[in-house]
């Protein structure tokens, strides 16, 4: 499943996460600010551009590499995963559908760390029901006039551009009238809403993005008119493996915290790890985490081999989204009262886990995808 380069990559990611990220994880969570120095270090290791082709300043790496780094970073600080978003959500639409000029400008910008990108599909009235988006892009000569509001945008407060999905044909039925645009945050009519106050991944900045008569040059249409839904689905398809890896990382981190704590915590005259209930809990948790790991890397390997992977990616996302919540819950339970205190990392992991079964397609949506693959659409 892995090559030698993957093993060395895991060593790098694990050391970096333990040395550079873990000591700051609590501070990042509590302040909601991401330290610029740490962001620079992540870029120096090129974690932000693993999957971006070398022609655009990236590493030209595979899906397994991105999954490994995402898992290792997610293990110590789930918020930090949004720092490497160009590998998936913000980079994938450009990698798959961008033209040469778009890639040289925006993909290279993200690879070199001079630009931060976002991805905007969700709206206040359109979550899982993608077809119901109300943002519009009306053609006006060499421009499109963009109007609407996107919400829950990861990296929104700090983004330099966003891939936005809007209706270019409001009369078209279903999803056929949706198109994708690359929109820069500096353009007139582009505004960012307030920083959202969230339950978890508090170090990952989130906000609304509002478009008021933003003039988007036609060069910034991504792919073709009407291709938006396809671009969106292809992006989410590949992004599922990344989110699954993040969930796997949180689950592994929560498991390790449980092992550490139960070996140290003494009750009834001995470490609670000596009690059979603890041992069975840890054995059960470790087995489930390993199941998640096999799902993630099986999907990643299939993608790297050019085989169909939609079903496997959805299974990995579904399973790991639920897994990290379960493992964080059980780890916190083993911590007892201490787990409820912010002094222990499990409190943060428990909150961070909650988003994984929701964003980039809820667990329920994943089940629709899996069932669709089984029964046919």
């Amino acid at each position, binding site marked *: 499943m892995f*090559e*030698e*380069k993957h*093993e*060395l*990559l895991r*060593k*790098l990611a694990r*050391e*970096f996460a333990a040395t550079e990220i873990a000591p700051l994880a609590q501070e990042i969570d509590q302040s909601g600010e991401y330290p610029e120095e740490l962001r620079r*270090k992540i870029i*120096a*290791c*090129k*974690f932000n*551009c*693993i999957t971006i082709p*070398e022609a655009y300043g*990236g*590493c*030209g*790496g595979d899906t397994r*590499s991105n999954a490994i*780094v995402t898992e290792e970073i997610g293990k110590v600080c789930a918020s930090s995963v949004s720092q490497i978003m160009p590998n998936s959500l913000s980079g994938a639409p450009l990698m798959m559908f961008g033209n040469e000029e778009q890639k040289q400008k925006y993909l290279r910008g993200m690879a070199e760390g001079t630009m931060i990108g976002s991805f905007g599909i969700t709206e206040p009235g359109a979550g899982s029901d993608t077809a119901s988006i109300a943002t519009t892009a009306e053609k006006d000569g060499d421009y499109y006039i963009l109007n609407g509001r996107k919400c829950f945008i990861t990296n929104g407060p700090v983004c330099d551009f966003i891939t936005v999905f809007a209706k270019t044909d409001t009369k078209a039925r279903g999803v056929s009238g949706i198109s994708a645009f690359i929109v820069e945050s500096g353009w007139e009519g582009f505004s960012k809403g307030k920083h959202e106050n969230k339950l978890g991944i508090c170090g990952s900045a989130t906000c609304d993005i509002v478009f008021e008569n933003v003039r988007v040059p036609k060069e910034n249409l991504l792919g073709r008119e009407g291709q938006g839904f396809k671009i969106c689905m292809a992006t989410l398809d590949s992004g599922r493996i990344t989110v699954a890896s993040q969930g796997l990382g949180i689950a592994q981190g929560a498991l390790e915290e449980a092992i550490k704590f139960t070996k140290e915590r003494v009750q009834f005259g001995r470490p609670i790890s000596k009690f059979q209930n603890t041992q069975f809990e840890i054995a059960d948790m470790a087995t489930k985490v390993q199941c998640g790991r096999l799902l993630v890397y099986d999907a990643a390997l299939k993608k790297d081999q050019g085989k169909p992977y939609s079903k496997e990616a959805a299974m990995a996302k579904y399973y790991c989204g639920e897994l990290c919540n379960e493992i964080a819950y059980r780890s916190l339970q083993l911590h007892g009262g201490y787990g409820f205190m912010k002094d222990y990392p499990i409190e943060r992991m428990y909150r961070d886990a909650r988003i994984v079964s929701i964003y980039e397609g809820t667990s329920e949506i994943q089940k629709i995808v899996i069932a669709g693959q089984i029964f046919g659409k």
Partner: protein
Amino acid sequence: MNILVCAKQVPNTNEVKIDPVKGTLIRDGVESILNPDDANALEAALKIKDSFENVTVTVLSMGPPQADVMLRECLAMGADEAILLSDRAFGGADTWATSNTISAAIKHAGNFDIIFAGRQAIDGDTAQVGPQIAEKLGIPQVTYVEHIEIDGDVITVHRQLENGYEEIEVKTPVLLTAVKELNSPRYMNVKGIYDAYSKTVPVWGVEDLPIDRETIGLKASPTKVFRSFTPDPKGKGMMLEGTLKEKVGALMDNLKLKHII
């Protein structure tokens, strides 16, 4: 400028234990790492490569075939080439036989302006191999280097002492041994890792080197290990409380009580 860095793969001695019966290291399950001082040596070489044009950094290691991964790590940090000296005939060598092998390999590999080594390896702690290589190559050496400045072929270094440093000017070719205060080794990067695995790391055996078999390996090693043991832990320290005057008083009383003063 051609720079060579001598590196060794060592067991992470933070985790290693000694077999109380055999008196040897228990290496099972202990991860192998790039010797920490050698990482400082490599970083010094890479810093020179960053600052000057036409600098080539080659890493050389003697060890079992598994040391390949450590050399890949050095390549992923930014070294240009790596060579592994691996042969059963090299095995069991003490510092004398090791430096015979390595200095022969360096002569075989080419001409180098600077040879870096770590001060010492954490498994043996001898700090002998670097200086011996310099002697056998007939070039000057400066050990315990904590600062380097380069101006043409003149290198000014600070040599660490217990209570300060010596400033020494040397000309190339020279061998320098690095201490951890010299720098902070960089991380590998993702692209570097991919590139490292696209390169070939040649493995040189005894047949590849112009060397007399009688000068290498276990039988050419004058060192004999008499006994290995884990030192008994020191007694617990005593923390003195109170004002400075009280603490000094208590310290003096205790030292007198133990007949130290």
